[in-house]
């Protein structure tokens, strides 16, 4: 329970995956966003497909837009989503 991150999906991604959040165990030392992505893709083919269908996938770590190199540590909130279309 301690070494977990919350993963959120929004918009088309949430709809395609059919769930809006996951709780994922990671090493206490942390992983990159890219490694976290590979981990959740490996665990669920529907997630792998949905993420692959987003050529311009965006990620936010702790509610701030981030890169896929960003380090994620336990307790973080990581959100994946398509390009934003507000306004």
């Amino acid at each position, binding site marked *: 329970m301690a070494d977990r991150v919350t993963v959120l999906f*929004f918009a088309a991604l949430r709809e395609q995956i059919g769930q809006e959040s996951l709780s994922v165990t990671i090493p206490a030392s942390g992983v990159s966003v890219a490694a976290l992505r590979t981990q959740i893709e490996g665990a669920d083919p529907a997630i792998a497909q949905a993420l692959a269908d987003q050529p311009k996938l965006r990620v936010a770590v702790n509610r701030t837009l981030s890169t896929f190199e960003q380090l994620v540590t336990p307790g973080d909130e990581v959100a994946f989503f398509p390009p934003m279309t*507000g306004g």
Partner: protein
Amino acid sequence: MVVHVAVQAAPFDVGVEAERLSALSPLTGGVGLFVGQVRGGQGLRAMTLEHYPGMTEGTLHALAQEALARFDLTGCTVIHRVGRLEVGAGIVFVGAGAAHRGAALMATSFLIDRLKTGAPFWKREEYDDGRTIWVDARETDEEAARAWMSNPTA
């Protein structure tokens, strides 16, 4: 320099928001405003605006603060609605007050250009024939946002 930011399901009142900006300071000479609304056509019936509740307000506040840092303003406002909105309904209101009109109008453009691709909102369109379509980010919107990034002193 006063910032007003809101994320809400309820409609906004442009008259009230304009007055808020006009009344910010006796040194305000101009107020620029922009209202984005659901554009009809091609059988579009409504849109649903989804957002990332934990992130949205912080992003809009950061955007408003960036406008204050960039332009000589007396204040600015960003209001974005969420939920289902029918054709003609207001989606977004941005506005800026300034001593001079140039800053007010530039800040208004800046706020809406940056908000389009820089805040965690997503639009799902709903058509008369029952189709629903997630709106793709327009390349022109991303260019408009990038133009402000490559021109930090404007």
